């Protein structure tokens, strides 16, 4: 029997190791798995590389994990949202590494990892600083840049509904990076609003099929 449900967030995070690359869903706070990120502080993993669109805001979620000194490097498209004060402070002190990746390239690199593609050529960033040192190639008269897959050891994502097979739906623009990150990590952990019985999510409406998901946990724990 397949049962990906975990009774508590603490249990769902078990086994995440120091030095892991963690894909963190969300665009700003929409879709950000805040309880998972905060529980990761107690879980204890450190020296982490985080892949996320933004670098956290305020002092909760991703910013709290950062403040706790657990993040060595962040790979993101836009670390400068208003309220990203903890990141800016650590960056200013040279305590965190930053790799800036264009948003669409960030998403597509993870998709490539999840889809077994060894890389791709994109016109995005051609001729700019972000293409420095990267292989380029002219395709149909347009300069393209080779981008390589970006794989996670772990993905932490927020979804709306889940069942025990790990099928997921999302809520509105909180979907953002979730479906792509789910397929791009060895261990995908989804925090969800509600866990329902098999068959309750119409197969036509499943957004992330359970094959991409390893653990589901209800916000606040308990199924």
């Amino acid at each position, binding site marked *: 029997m397949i049962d990906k449900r975990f009774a508590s967030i603490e249990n769902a995070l078990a086994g995440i190791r120091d030095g892991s690359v963690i894909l963190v869903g969300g665009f700003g706070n929409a879709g950000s798995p805040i309880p998972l990120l905060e529980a990761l502080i107690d879980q204890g993993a450190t020296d982490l590389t985080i892949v996320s669109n933004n670098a956290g805001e305020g002092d909760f979620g991703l910013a709290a994990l950062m403040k706790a000194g657990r993040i060595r490097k962040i790979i993101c*498209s836009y670390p400068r949202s208003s309220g990203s004060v903890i990141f800016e402070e650590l960056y200013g002190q040279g305590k965190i590494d930053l790799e*800036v990746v264009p*948003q*669409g*390239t960030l998403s597509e690199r993870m998709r490539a990892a999840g889809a077994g593609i060894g890389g791709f050529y994109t016109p995005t960033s051609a001729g*700019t600083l972000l293409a420095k040192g990267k292989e380029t190639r002219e395709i149909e008269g347009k300069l393209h840049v080779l981008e390589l897959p970006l794989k996670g050891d772990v993905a932490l994502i927020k979804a709306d509904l889940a069942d025990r097979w790990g099928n997921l739906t999302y809520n509105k623009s909180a979907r953002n990076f979730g479906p792509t990150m789910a397929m791009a990590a060895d261990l995908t952990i989804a925090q969800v609003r509600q866990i329902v019985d098999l068959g309750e999510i119409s197969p036509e409406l499943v*957004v992330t099929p359970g094959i991409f998901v390893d653990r589901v946990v209800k916000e606040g724990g308990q199924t």
Partner: protein
Amino acid sequence: MSSKLTRSQIAWRIAQDIDDGCFVNLGIGMPELVANYLPDGREIIIHSENGLLGMGPVPEDGEEDGDLINAGKKPVTLLDGGSYFSHTDSFAMVRGGHLDICVLGAFQISQTGDLANWATLNNTKPPGVGGAMDLAVGAKQVFVMTEHCTKSGEPKILEQCTYPLTGANLVSRIYTDLAVIDVTGSGLVVCEWIEDMTFDDLQAKTAAPLSPASDAKQLTVPEL
């Protein structure tokens, strides 16, 4: 009426050039204003790169939903017929040439349509690019919305950008508080400029050669 345009008036002018049926992405910041002036009677679908097509207006007070935001992370609504999708699909729309127009802000624009809008030469702040590079290369037409000069009066339209590029050779049209300028194979062509200014005055505020269009007009916008 024909003095320097306000930001809202630049937005209004841009909106007049967006046709019925267009798919449009409005960049974060100033370009977001364009949504307020889309002409009545045109169905224009706004794309937001965080996974929305058919973005609607700002919600009523108390109706905000943290899961329904735009690329600037502000609460929005979704129109009937709108859809939600993942980032991967969203940027397939962006890079795949499915957007008719994107409107972006600028630090600098070159005479060949290079755009610099993501980083300055100030390295004290961390850089951030967001979706600008993808939008710039992917949309069928890139409109730039900007003040003609910086706050200290330096021209933003140059022979070559000095700031790091967002992308090369991709701006179609520049809308400023003084003029509407097409980027063409034979240089910058001014389609419209404000009445209060001579062509020579406009040239003096621009650090790249301009030529007037054969059918150049006065840049006229309503009071807003």
